[in-house]
């Protein structure tokens, strides 16, 4: 009786659950970076990551400046093998608040990526 009750519950839950999972899968945006859920709270689109990945050379160093933890934590998922390092050691900076004061003079290029994010290239 116990096993039958558990099975009956499983079979009642199953169709609804399967429909739900299928709907979630179909409704998700296909972009691999848009899966990073917390970023969707702050940014309409996370396409800026794709643009950053095009501009920062593989194996180069970058930092995330003046942005929330979500952006800092999510960046390696997309940007590896680029290395995330401290701001003072980075050749590239993803920033939502302009250049860090100590590096302001060394910024050689600023590229708006959208969503209020800039990519800064630091000169030697």
């Amino acid at each position: 009786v116990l096993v039958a009750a558990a099975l009956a519950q499983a079979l009642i839950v199953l169709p609804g659950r399967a429909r739900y999972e299928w709907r979630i899968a179909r409704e998700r945006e296909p972009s691999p970076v848009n899966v990073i859920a917390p970023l969707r709270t702050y940014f309409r689109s996370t396409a800026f990551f794709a643009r950053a990945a095009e501009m920062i050379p593989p194996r180069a160093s970058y930092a995330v400046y003046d942005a929330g933890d979500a952006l800092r934590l999510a960046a390696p998922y997309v940007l590896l093998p680029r290395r995330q390092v401290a701001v003072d050691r980075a050749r590239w900076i993803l920033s939502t608040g302009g250049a860090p004061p100590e590096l302001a003079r060394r910024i050689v290029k600023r590229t708006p990526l959208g969503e209020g994010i800039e990519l800064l290239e630091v000169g030697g």
Partner: protein
Amino acid sequence: LSRSWLGPLVLDLALLATGASLLYGLGLVRGARALARLAGLAFVLGWAALGSALSLFLVLGLAGGTAELSLGFVLLVGLGLGASRVIAARPARPCVAHCRLDRWLLAVAATVATAYLGLQLARVVVDGTGSHWYWDAWAFWIPKAKSIFFFGGLDTSPGGFTSFPSPAYPPLLPAMQAAVFAAAGRADAGLLPVQEWLLAAGFLGALSGLLVPRVSGRALAPALLLVGVTPGFAKYIGSGLADEPLAFLIALSGLALLLAQRERDGRLLGLAAILAGAAALTKQEGLPLALLVVLAAALGALVVGERRSAARTATVAIAPLLATIAWRLWLHLNDVHYRADYSPARLLHPRWLIDHAGRLHYALGQVARTLFLSTDVWLLIALLAIALSLLLLRRAPEIALFAPTTLILGMLGFDVTYWIGRLPVVQWASTSTERVISSVVLSVAAMLPLLIERGLEPASAGAPGEQPSLAASSLTGG
């Protein structure tokens, strides 16, 4: 087919061959029919063994790429073949399930479970990296795997393996994810969900392969179906998280321990040890969970006066302990600084514990609700296991004690962890309980067929395949 798909396919065949070799070495498989029946177990065992070998190579400073994969494969296959010379073959077991009238039940269960698994495969293929929306997956599990692939091992410099959150988590899962990248020749996270699906299918295959000759279809079919269609089981396939692979390892290790005790078979202890060792390398809680199933199984043997059996069971704990020591040693030698999510030292400060009793209160409710009342996630598995165990406690305490021990101690373990943790308990517990208890739930789900089988038998009968003395020494004296 491009290398992106051919490479992982070759890797999967290597996992299957590795597991099959080890099963051959342990004497659990010595023929084509047994291999076909235990193919699911071979895949999971191969994943566990090769994952453990890669973790060890990484700890030793090697890269974790195709060379190390090949080395691990050759060593493990050689180990299996070598062991087969000293470990005698296990005698073929008479088939219990197929000899009874309930064969159709297994067919129905297999059909429904296969259809549901097929739906899950379609979901992960369509979803791709869309399955990686859990914080832990994109914040550290997959970046760690990519860092192993790109930087050639456990890189401790900025931006490397130890720079992500939870740096002290052991490396088996990222090592195996990196192995997929190495096989494919590129770090495409979209390849991982299908691999996780294969592991989940392997787990169900392992359960059925181990239990088909041991319990009747009436006992096996509903239990397998229940596990297969449990939303909590399907939900995390493709997630990129370590919780579900860990749950598979713990559940199969616990089942192997119970079968080893029941049949007094050291070969099954070897199987349990490999799985438990891999569990300890998969996640921080792998060690306590592996020790929990060892304790729960040993307790059952102790209660029926089988001290030797309990002692043999306890030896399995050596494997996860050694694995943990190796990883801890690497962390120490590489001076990896991390702040643990919880501090056991807080248990020694009664004042702190009293001041934070609210955390325990919340955790008790959250964990108990998720374990027993989350009917849309884990269904009635825990309640069913408790109810069946209570009904069989006098008749078959050696197996009936396993579920309550695992559930209650597991629940208390998570409660205490949340209590002494440093993260805000509401956010922490509400976002993690459902998945971290999966090891506990699947452990009791894996042994449900044994409980159901005993429940279906006449009160005076011993378990099929059970040694006479074990049945005779039960509490009932039966």
